[in-house]
């Protein structure tokens, strides 16, 4: 086990180093930050001076190592738009995005798992067909369009909910549903597939022969064994949600990380983009690592691969 953990940890470190290298190259090589920081009338000499003070005249490798050093202490430089350290601007927004993604995840699980279970138990019934339809439509509706539809109906037509911004729960409802719907469809399909497989197992037949009530068979015997892939999927779904959150945040003017990245790309505020992308990649690598380790801990076969 310790060998597996070590290998997997090493892999994650390599991945993170690669991600930071790519972020660094894309931002430093393709875009010259001095163009953004100086007024257009600045002379070439001014630019050269700034380049030297920022250390942009040194070899790329040295620059990358310095970037890594700064990264280790969370220093991504100042955001010229906010005139604050980029990382603190990013961290201020993380909370909003986490509230949105976790609510969406909750909605996905609360809708997806029960419908998935019912579809598997009553296979090929009208429940199953309705569930399938729900899943297909869910996976075909881009979250941003679903959001636009909801605004048109619930905010503009009925006037029940605010079109965007933050505040009380009423601001959270539509963005969370728009975002969660897409994942609910996936959760439902996976729950159904995994439940159907488990329901075929010998020990379920045994439980039926023993005469256990159906409720106990389904929830205690089957669902517990079927939920492992669903849990993994849900954990990995966080990433999909984080990506989808960008467009949903833009639709509902939700002041989260995705909205911040979008605005920063538009305003060429690259210190923010760099900080946010690195933060997301780090948390992602951490989630992937945790899921893998958890899996290896639960299922010994994986460790000996």
């Amino acid at each position, binding site marked *: 086990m310790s060998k597996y953990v070590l290998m997997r940890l090493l*892999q994650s470190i*390599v*991945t993170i180093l*690669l*991600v930071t290298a*790519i*972020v660094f190259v*894309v*931002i430093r090589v*393709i*875009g010259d930050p001095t163009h953004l920081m100086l007024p257009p009338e600045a002379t070439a000499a001014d630019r050269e001076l700034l380049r030297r003070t920022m250390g942009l005249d040194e070899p790329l490798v040295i620059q990358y190592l310095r970037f890594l050093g700064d990264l280790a202490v969370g220093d991504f430089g100042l955001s010229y738009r906010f005139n604050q350290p980029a990382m603190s601007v990013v961290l201020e927004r993380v909370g909003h995005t986490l509230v949105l993604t976790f609510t969406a995840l909750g909605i996905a699980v609360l809708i997806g798992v029960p419908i998935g279970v019912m579809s598997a*138990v*009553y*296979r*090929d*019934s*009208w*429940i199953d*067909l309705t569930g399938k339809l729900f899943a*297909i*439509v869910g*996976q*075909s*509706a*881009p979250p*941003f*369009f679903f959001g*636009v*539809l909801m*605004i*048109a109906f619930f905010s*503009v037509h009925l006037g029940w909910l605010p079109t965007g911004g933050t505040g009380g729960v009423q601001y959270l409802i539509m963005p969370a549903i728009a975002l969660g719907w897409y994942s609910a469809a996936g959760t439902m399909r996976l729950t159904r*597939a995994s439940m159907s497989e488990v329901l075929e197992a010998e020990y379920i037949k045994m439980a*039926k*022969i023993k*005469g*256990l*009530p*159906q409720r106990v*068979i389904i929830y205690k015997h089957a669902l517990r064994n079927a939920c492992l*892939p669903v849990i993994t999927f849900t954990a990995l779904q966080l*990433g999909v949600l*984080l*990506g*989808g959150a*960008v*467009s949903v945040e*833009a*639709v509902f003017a939700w002041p989260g990380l*995705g909205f911040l*990245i*979008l605005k920063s*790309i*538009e305003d060429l505020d690259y210190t923010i983009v760099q900080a946010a*992308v690195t933060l*997301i*990649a780090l948390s*992602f*690598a951490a989630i*992937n690592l945790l899921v893998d380790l958890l899996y290896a801990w639960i299922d010994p076969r994986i460790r000996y691969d």
Partner: protein
Amino acid sequence: MTNAGIPAKSRPATDAANAARSAAVLMVLPKRRRQWAQSALVSVAAAVLALILSAAMFPWAFTTYEPNAMDLMATLQPPSFEHLFGTDALGRDILCRSIYGAQISIFVAACAVFVAGAVGTALGILAAYFRGPTDAIIMRLADVQFSLPAVILAMFLVGAIGASILNLIIVLTLANWARFARVIRSEALSLRTRDFVLLAELAGASPLRVMVRHIAPNILSSLIVLATLDVGVIVILEATLSFLGLGIRPPDPSLGTLIADGRGYLATAWWISVLPGLVLMSLILACNTLGDYLRDRLSPTLAMKW
């Protein structure tokens, strides 16, 4: 099987379970009707896709308007026989713009899926064939792609290299090749140990020949299924980028930009956003339905890997 071996006290409960099961049986549709429902769904999906594709390929047969032609005498018209999808604030015909938008979306998605599929498959086979360092390098690169949500990776790259149709295809490929590489690698790994591959090597076939002639043909059906299922994902990704203003640039229409254009008019002219959005949804719906169908028919084992 009889109840002889079961303790008597459990019999009533078994009956209860049987009753529950027969209640379930009542709700099950007859097999013929089930198959009918399935094939009806697939036929509808195929018809919808055919309609959208032919409109995208031969727009002149479906609309007499120009996508960017303004008509200031007919702004914000609701859907009518003259303008089936209505007009926007500049009097442009929404149906016409949706058709040209679908054309660009489909073109970009098809190119991106093709390139990502080709690159991902090649790298997946290379990784599986050579193992060792080659495998490690390719798979770490795949990890990099997986460590960022596709939308954020694509936004980041578009922000750096600028938005154009070619750049969009490049970015969508970079944000999407690793899925192919992972699945194809695992398929190729198991093919690698099969007798016909080992025999081909014994007979002196070069690595290239083994990979192209012996491994590649055997992963074709998985590749087709992966690619079909991927089209819907890429169409959503492209529409998201365009919606966010990082994809196709106005005045050129794309389904994503059309939806974004109409956001300010939801109260007065809902059709500007909603109708192109429904076209987008039908396109994705048709692709996903056909992809699922192909997967069930060609490669059922892929379901769990995807």
